[in-house]
């Protein structure tokens, strides 16, 4: 118990000290501890509010997530407008702003559960495994919230053993994904790593996607552009597997037999299926936080518009928002840097949302279609999905300018 408390306090302090320089501050131990204390108080306050959800003001009951995020924006506003220069005050405020996105999505699940009356009979300690995960995790809550975890929790010794075996299997899979990723990085992209060295330094030497984007037109043949696109996608999927399987593996060792975060996305035959399989808990976060609230509130009389609005709320706005609130330029209030950082992502999110909407509509128009496709048709569908996600990934991140990206994409099909 004492060990858990020590880890629960020291881990976020260490994480803050590590992340600090990116955000332009270097918190000392005292500042770090103050941040952790404030965050714990904030978390406790929201937990108490969730427990008494039905007695909260009507506005909070109807829009719990807006109110939750409103608190974060209020903090940013204070930070931007007062620009406190004194080290302890500024350090603590910046530290809170840096760390809050980690808690926001977790508290979101808590409040959504409270809204649905699902907190009855639970205590704070029941929620700490996802609210304050000392075992690790990312801003995206793997395993979602309490009621989801409760639903998959092992109820007997046999189920626990099954869950733990599944967890161990995921650790092995994570290792395989990490090796696969290193193989691509070493043998395809020519990065210097242990696997490449062990294989005598051989490599195809295909420039990475970033290198293609930054190179002048015609510097590389078209085929290496396409190869870089697809291998970049494979690398991303393997990296996602290597990281996500470890986190889900930990949860399974604790007896929560949750879904995998990444489940064979490269076999998906539709865009929406890939999106579901590639980063499951991020997709779930967007669905629970943006898609469903929009779907249940807006355009009820127009099914197409309703779906369109919900998809764009999640895959476009939500996706963008998730990344913006954890970015350094936002915390610094550096609008030019923020715009430069998210310009390409705006396109990425727009293309992603459009693709998902069209894929969903297509699926809706073919209800009951269960006849398995022939192998060639499946292969074509899978290749189409790979191509879509590879191409939109050009807009995902990196240093290249808008013009460089357009130039690269048009160059892939021999235009220009």
């Amino acid at each position, binding site marked *: 118990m004492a060990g858990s408390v020590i880890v629960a306090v020291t881990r976020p302090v260490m994480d803050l000290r590590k992340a600090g320089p990116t955000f332009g501050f270097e918190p000392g131990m005292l500042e770090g501890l103050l941040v952790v204390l404030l965050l714990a108080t904030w978390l406790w306050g929201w937990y108490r509010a969730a427990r008494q959800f039905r007695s909260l003001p009507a506005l909070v009951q109807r829009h719990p997530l807006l109110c939750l995020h409103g608190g974060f924006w209020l903090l940013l506003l204070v930070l931007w407008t007062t620009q406190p220069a004194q080290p302890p005050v500024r350090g603590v405020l910046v530290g809170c702003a840096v760390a809050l996105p980690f808690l926001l999505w977790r508290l979101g699940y808590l409040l959504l559960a409270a809204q649905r009356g699902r907190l009855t009979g639970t205590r704070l300690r029941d929620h700490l495994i996802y609210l304050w995960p000392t075992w690790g995790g990312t801003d995206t809550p793997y395993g979602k919230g309490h009621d989801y975890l409760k639903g998959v929790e092992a109820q007997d010794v046999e189920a626990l053993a099954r869950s733990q075996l599944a967890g161990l299997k995921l650790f092995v899979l994570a290792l395989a994904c990490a090796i696969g990723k290193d193989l691509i990085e070493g043998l395809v992209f020519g990065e210097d790593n242990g696997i490449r060295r062990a294989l005598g330094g051989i490599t195809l030497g295909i420039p990475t996607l970033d290198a293609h984007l930054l190179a002048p037109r015609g510097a590389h043949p078209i085929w290496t552009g396409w190869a870089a696109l697809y291998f970049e996608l494979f690398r991303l999927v393997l990296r996602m597997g290597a990281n996500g399987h470890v986190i889900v593996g930990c949860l399974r060792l604790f007896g929560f037999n949750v879904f995998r975060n990444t489940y064979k996305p490269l076999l998906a035959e539709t865009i929406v299926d890939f999106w579901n399989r590639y980063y499951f808990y991020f997709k779930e976060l967007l669905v629970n936080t943006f898609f469903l609230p929009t779907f*249940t509130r807006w355009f009820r009389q127009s099914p197409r518009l309703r779906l369109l609005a919900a998809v764009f709320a999640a895959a476009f706005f939500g996706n963008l928002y998730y990344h913006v609130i954890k970015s350094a330029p936002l915390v610094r209030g550096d609008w030019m840097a923020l715009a430069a950082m998210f310009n390409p992502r705006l396109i990425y999110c727009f293309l992603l949302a459009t693709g998902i909407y069209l894929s*969903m509509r297509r699926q809706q128009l073919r*209800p009951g279609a269960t006849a398995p496709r022939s192998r060639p048709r499946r292969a074509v569908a899978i290749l189409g999905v790979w191509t879509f996600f590879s191409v939109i990934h050009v807009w995902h991140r990196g240093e290249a300018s808008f013009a460089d990206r357009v130039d690269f994409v048009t160059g892939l099909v021999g235009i220009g």
Partner: protein
Amino acid sequence: MSAAREQQRQELLRFLRSIQKAGLPVERLADGDPLVASGLIDSLAILQIVTWLETTYGIDFAVRGIAPEDLATIGGILEVIGESAGRSPA
């Protein structure tokens, strides 16, 4: 099982038959079996279930809140209907 819940169950099964994939009899599913994982419906059909619950039972999910897990099984959907009717499911 109360008569009201049985009637709700029959209405729900009738609706599920109208949106289910071909070749998988809905009657085979128990109340706790997962609808999507069993292959009866795809994940998008959850949206059709939401719309059906809104129009048939007047459930306002904007007020009540919603999680896909609530609608993942026949039992879960009946529970949502039961809650909306202001009574606990039988």
